[in-house]
């Protein structure tokens, strides 16, 4: 049977710290959520000043990226490009969710919410980079 890598809590803390550092560097207050490959929450932090709604949105973006194995920007772009039927799919199609891929396997995702969508994604990507 196939075996695949899996995120540990320590991995999550490392990813989260990198995301938080990127946010702090830019003086952004956001929520960072890390989920496993099934879209289940592993780790979350709401930085002081982020809104309660950001917590839900970050999880939604992360879940979308995790279970669809692609960035939420992909979904946003396709819908913005005219594929309105995709609004009916079980996704949160707003940039800021990025899958975590290790050894060609999706092991989870990062969802960020709190600033402009492209900035949210910038923070998520800083977390991806930290995993090496």
């Amino acid at each position, binding site marked *: 049977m196939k075996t695949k890598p899996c995120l*540990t*809590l320590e991995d999550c803390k490392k990813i989260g710290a990198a995301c938080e550092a990127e946010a702090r560097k830019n003086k952004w207050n956001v929520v960072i959520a890390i989920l496993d490959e099934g879209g*289940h929450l592993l780790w*979350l*932090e*709401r930085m002081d000043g982020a809104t*309660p709604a950001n*917590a839900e949105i970050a999880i939604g973006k992360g879940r979308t990226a995790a279970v669809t194995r692609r960035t939420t920007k992909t979904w946003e772009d396709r819908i913005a490009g005219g594929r309105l039927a995709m609004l009916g799919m079980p996704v949160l199609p707003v940039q800021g969710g990025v899958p975590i891929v290790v050894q060609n396997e999706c092991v989870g995702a990062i969802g960020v919410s709190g600033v402009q969508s492209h900035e949210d994604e910038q923070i998520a990507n800083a977390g991806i980079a930290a995993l090496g």
Partner: protein
Amino acid sequence: MMLKSVFTTAVLGAALAVSGGSSAQQPAQNPLDVIPEKMPFDIPSGTPITLDRAQAAVAAAIAESKKRDWRMNVAVVGPSGRLIAFARMDGAQRASINIAEHKARTAALYRRETKVFENAVQQGNLHYILTLDDVIASRGGIPLVEGGKLIGGIGCSGGTGSQDEAVCKVGAATINK
């Protein structure tokens, strides 16, 4: 006919009890009819817990869980009931992600430990509690109160209710003095 006469007797009996004041004839009083003088769990909201302190509470709960070789989900919410910090330990059951958050939210929104609800249902037979909004009648959710003000809630899930509570108490102790 039979029914009617029974009914009449019952109504008359009640009326007599009221007018005559013979308490021996009164049916058992519904304890829910009692009107307490003061509000229960009357805790005002304070400034929401900061991220640093929320993470410290989560870390304390996880450290306790590790010590006992348990695998838990730990959630801290603000007074609004929304997540501030969350962590799932390696191998913790996934169903407990939402349960941990639910316990934290219920503890914060109702300003009391979720054990209060568990006791009400389990020992008090107050099943109506389960019809209230967003209740979880299982121990392991504790409000975070500082200086008499509610600043959030913490919830743990992954084991038995008693295991959840043991870990949750350690997390809550970082705030509740």
